[in-house]
């Protein structure tokens, strides 16, 4: 482990992944993450004050107890304990395009999504939320129903591990099936590279939203997918559809970057219009930073 900050949630994801399996990584990330937050990241749910602790650099000032500061001239921050019965379902895209990384030094999008999903599940379970998992590619591959009982996190992790890399992505079909599985109102977190038809996928997500779910989308991209690079001339092939195109990356880099920016902006705009939280995450973003997007 390289020298630097001890909080695993702020380390490079690839470096963190080298520590061990999904469980170890997720637990380490969640420990570090929770040390930096003072309340549930998921606002809108019931929370109770539990105790004070001394202020540490980096703590958010909004949790500073101003009364104690006024009386004793010492810095304390307030800590809370959630009381919730949220039902959360984490959807992980396991299509073939997710099994790609720009360089071997980085996690694939799927590996990143698995670890992020495990961390999310651990956080949710620790705050006694019923949490489940669905993995899908062209069809739903694994379903772990939302529970809060002991051993649920292990089941979720096993579900992630037992889902192989898929072939294609027909997300809207899988999402439509999920609407039947998510009968009770809750929170749906989608981890995907969103390389599928936007309108069809949005139709399914809109339906979930219409059913009263809180929908959060993590749009995962490898940094190499954001900035085009490569040999002077190269044939790029889509691993899912086998469609290929010959380009000169240096010539097309700016136009490609513009296209990606427009695509991200289009997703963000469409999600906002339908009340869906959208987060664009590159796979070199520390897990803690990705989790913090939820706060």
């Amino acid at each position, binding site marked *: 482990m390289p020298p630097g900050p001890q909080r695993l949630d702020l380390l490079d994801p690839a470096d963190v992944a080298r520590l061990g399996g999904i469980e170890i990584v997720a637990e380490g990330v969640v420990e570090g993450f929770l040390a930096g937050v003072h309340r549930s990241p998921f606002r809108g749910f019931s929370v109770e004050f539990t105790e004070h602790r001394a202020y540490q650099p980096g703590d958010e000032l909004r949790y500073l107890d101003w009364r104690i500061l006024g009386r004793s001239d010492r810095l304390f921050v307030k800590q809370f304990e959630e009381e919730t019965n949220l039902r959360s379902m984490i959807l992980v895209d396991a299509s073939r*395009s997710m099994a*790609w990384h720009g360089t071997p030094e980085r996690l694939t999008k799927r590996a990143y999504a698995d670890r992020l999903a495990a961390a999310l599940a651990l956080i949710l379970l620790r705050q006694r939320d019923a949490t489940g998992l669905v993995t899908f590619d062209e069809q739903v591959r694994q379903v772990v129903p939302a529970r809060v009982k002991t051993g649920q996190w292990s089941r979720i992790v096993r579900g992630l591990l037992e889902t192989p890399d898929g072939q294609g992505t027909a997300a809207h079909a899988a999402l439509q099936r999920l609407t039947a599985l998510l009968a009770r109102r809750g929170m749906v977190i989608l981890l995907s*590279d969103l*390389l599928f038809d936007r309108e069809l996928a949005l139709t399914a997500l809109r339906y979930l939203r219409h059913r009263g779910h809180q929908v959060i989308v993590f749009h995962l*991209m490898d940094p190499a*997918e954001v900035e*085009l690079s*490569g*040999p*002077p*001339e*190269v*044939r*790029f*092939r*889509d*691993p*899912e*559809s086998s*469609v*290929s*195109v*010959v*380009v000169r990356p*240096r*010539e*097309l*880099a*700016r*136009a*490609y970057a*513009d*296209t*990606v920016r427009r*695509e991200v902006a289009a997703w963000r705009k469409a999600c906002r219009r339908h009340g869906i939280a959208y987060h664009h995450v590159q796979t070199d973003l520390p897990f803690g930073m990705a989790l913090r997007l939820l706060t």
Partner: protein
Amino acid sequence: MSFIHPLALLGLAAAAIPALLHLLQRRVPPEIDFPPVRYLSAAERESARRLRLRHLLLLILRTALIVVIVLAAARPLVRVTGVGGGGAHEPTALVVILDNSPSSGAVVDGRLVLDRLRVAAHSSIGRTTSADRVWLMLSDGVLRGGTREALLATIDSTRSGWQRLDLVQAVERAARLVEAQPLPGREVHVLSDLQNTAVATGRATVARGVRVLATAPGRAVANRGIAAVSVSEGAAVISLRGSSAGSDEPVPPPVPVTIRIGAGRRGEVAARGLGTGGVSGAAVTVSLPAQTLAPGWWMGEAQLEPDELRADDRRPFAWRVAPPARVMATPGGGAGSFVAAALAVLQDGRRIAPGRDVVISGGEPLAGARAIVLPPEDPALVGQANRALESRGVLWSWGQPGTPGPVVASGGGVPMLNGVQVVKRYQLQGAGTSGEQGAAEILATVNGEPWLVRAGNVVLLGSRLDTAWTALPASPGFVPFVDALVNRIVAGAAEVDQAEGAPRVEFQTRGSDTIAATVYGPDARESDLTPATPANASAALGGRDRAEVLDADRFAAERFSGTRRADISGALLVLALLLAAAELGVATRTR
């Protein structure tokens, strides 16, 4: 456009390299998995037009860059306009005519004319390159080829010669030579004092595409020269020729002429006379004390006071002194009183003696003697006289009366006859040859018809030597003419030939006898230094559209101007740099 290194143009094949690389590179690109191909496709669709234009622009720029670099390596020469003698020129066939005729030895403003011409010739040949073909022609008319250095050396060693150069013929020959050369440029440079007499013989035929450039003549100078010296019995006639340089002197100063005969041998004779100065065609007759000269061949020399042109200030001559002929005129005055008087003078001067070797008659030749026959005074006796001639074997006869006119001497050493008016004459008719008499010789004509003829030992005249027939008896040349008739012409004595060359006398011998002499000297026309006007000169040297007469500065500027080229390789390299910069800009620009 031409090129200094045309072989470098083979490098133009390299212009295909960008296109080939473009095609080859597109064949086997590496293949990489890349999930967001849909984004790539969209970006490419949006940029397709711009990329095609960019690719095309890059291809054009790179190809042009190679082409420009190759062209620069080939050192292209392009035609340029404007005044200026510098720069390169296309391969040119050049003939430099350096007129080193005797007139080039004139001193003008303290400098030899030839020196000025030589500098210009040096400059013309010095401007040539190894791609040019160059010849040098001097006044001998020989076209000299060779390397530039060899020709320059020839120019440096050239001195004024003794041969006249007919510029019209010289330019025509030179133009034919350069016109036959397969080179882009064809020029003839005429470096001459452009004497009027040198361009007065017609007009040179110059083919289209041949440029004739001539240097303008310098300042005209006055000159007097000895055109010819003829020595007859008792007198030397010195013909003068020259130019006045446009002086307005109403009466030219007299010209002193010195004659020396037999220089360096016993009996040397010197005489002086005064001639009319500076007038072409003037003649000075100097009486010679002939009785002091022993029989035989004599050489002499006529001299003028030195002037700007020394080559024509002295001229040698040769003269044969024979024993006095024994002469008689037919009794009864058939030859006329003027002939009798002339014979009396000659006898007094011991040029002739009484005798019957030569008989002068009025129509009836005497058998067994050399005869000088005049037509009979009575027309009725012409037939009888013709029969007498025929009986002697002479095939010439008197015919119908001829038209009046001046006498033109055509040989035989009778220059005193030139221009003498004949008012009455008979046409001399005859085959001109006789097996017995040998070849007939026409010594003088009137209006193109024979007037004085020698056939064997008989001499016939078309007119009687009487003032009613001709003005000759009243002219100063009458006695010398009669002297020549009786002492030389009727005896068939050899003439003295004139030839062009360094002044000298050469004798021809037969056995131990000297039978003839040739006197060498410069052509008399060289003495006339009057320059031709530029218009006349350019018209004579090929026409005004082909030939130009230019002053020294313009001559230097116009040389090779028809084929002058500028080396634009430097500009091409600058263009190549600009193209490279443009290529770099387009290639590194990503959108």
